[in-house]
């Protein structure tokens, strides 16, 4: 049986993994390559590395980081942040990534999805969508870009459909409303997107407990869920999280 995936996410800035504390203060959490290995060893099904600043001068650092992280990583490895052209993507793949995640650049020029897919296959292209809906219904959630700073006027469900039609292999859906709140994923929004497309949907934003994952895999119809800070709040690692999910009847990769 196809299992639900737990994906460990590393936010990288200037070549180091960082984590926000109370949404503002950024503290250093360690070396990306080392943490990527630690997450894989602790049972994560995949590892995602997001260059959250993606500054031009940081590009060299990122590629070196990707190379080091990928060298001994034998689970799928996604890199995102600052991939704006097919050439950027190629450099990231050459450094050892299996998939790239594109966000603002795909909105700016949707052809990019197909261009990367043509060379590396659709399975290698994840379109990341940052969604905000406030009090509106899930169908009216709006796509934001530039790290959540700029509204686009586009509806999330429609953009997800277009991304699929243009050849995206997966959708990484982050609820900006839920992000950092630890009150659970936006299951309604995740289900709306998951039902609108045939490709897998990765839910992100809001995880605070194992029950939140049970909810998003059930009601939210997510195929995978991204976890970052949850590992700092009561759940020690993917293996422990999966053990709790298995007890709740969620199909997960165990032993791992």
């Amino acid at each position, binding site marked *: 049986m196809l299992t639900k*995936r737990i994906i460990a996410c590393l936010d990288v800035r200037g070549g180091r993994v960082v984590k926000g504390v109370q949404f503002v203060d950024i503290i250093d959490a360690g070396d990306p390559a080392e943490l990527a290995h630690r997450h894989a060893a602790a049972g994560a099904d995949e590892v995602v590395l997001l260059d959250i600043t993606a500054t031009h001068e940081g590009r060299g650092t990122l590629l070196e980081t990707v190379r080091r992280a990928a060298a001994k990583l034998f689970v799928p490895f996604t890199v995102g942040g600052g991939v704006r052209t097919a050439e950027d993507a190629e450099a990231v793949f050459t450094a050892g990534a299996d998939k790239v995640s594109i966000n603002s650049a795909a909105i700016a020029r949707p052809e990019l999805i197909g261009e990367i897919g043509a060379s590396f*296959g659709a399975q290698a292209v994840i379109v990341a969508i940052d969604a905000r809906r406030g009090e509106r219904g899930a169908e009216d959630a709006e796509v934001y870009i530039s790290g959540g700073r700029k509204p686009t006027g586009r509806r999330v469900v429609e953009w997800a459909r277009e991304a699929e039609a243009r050849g995206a*292999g997966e959708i990484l859906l982050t609820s900006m409303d839920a992000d950092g709140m630890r009150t659970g994923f936006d299951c309604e929004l995740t289900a709306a997107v998951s039902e609108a497309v*045939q490709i897998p949907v990765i839910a992100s934003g809001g995880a605070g407990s194992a029950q939140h994952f049970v909810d998003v895999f059930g009601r939210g119809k997510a195929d*995978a869920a991204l976890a970052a800070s949850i590992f700092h709040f009561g759940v020690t690692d993917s293996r422990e999280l999966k053990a709790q999910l298995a007890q709740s009847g969620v199909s997960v990769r165990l032993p791992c």
Partner: protein
Amino acid sequence: MIAVIDYKAGNLTSVVKALKFLDVHDMVVTQSPEEVLRAEKIVLPGVGHFQATQLLKDLGLTEAVRESIAKGTPFLGICVGLQWLYEGSTEAPETEGLGHFASQCERFPAVYQGADLKSPHVGWNSLEQIRPDSRLLRGVANGAFVYFTHSWRAPVSADTAAVTNYGGAFTSAVERGNVMGVQFHPEKSAEVGLRVLRNFVEL
């Protein structure tokens, strides 16, 4: 010497990296039929479109592989590399496969047992009904999880070494004599995947 065939399909890096991790140093990444003929083992990686395998024929690699297989050289096809061992795929009907195994690869059905079936099949799924005589899957337990990402799959036949269930059973590993293939990505399947690659390297 292990020849890893480069036919510009997806990314070779991860397969080469995994082989290096297993202490394989005598390895060439090649498009040369001569090197393929000289190799002691052949790996055909692949991810992406079946159409890409057309290049194998155009470069004379199909004939080189056929000849190598005939003289007993162990061969491992990964993902599209497995599918290429069959007669063809509905993904690119005009492109011929090697035809070592009978039948065509087909797309997952959009609906299975009355429910929508997502495609591609992405993620960790289990190996079942592992054939006890499989040399490639030696030491791998029934139910072991491996990583898949594909939309087309090979049917189950007498040469099937393991099946996986998604929209019905399909061939996740095939093996007859020295010719082997896996639909999953051993280079991305953690310990289980490394075990499969090690089994092949140590043949």
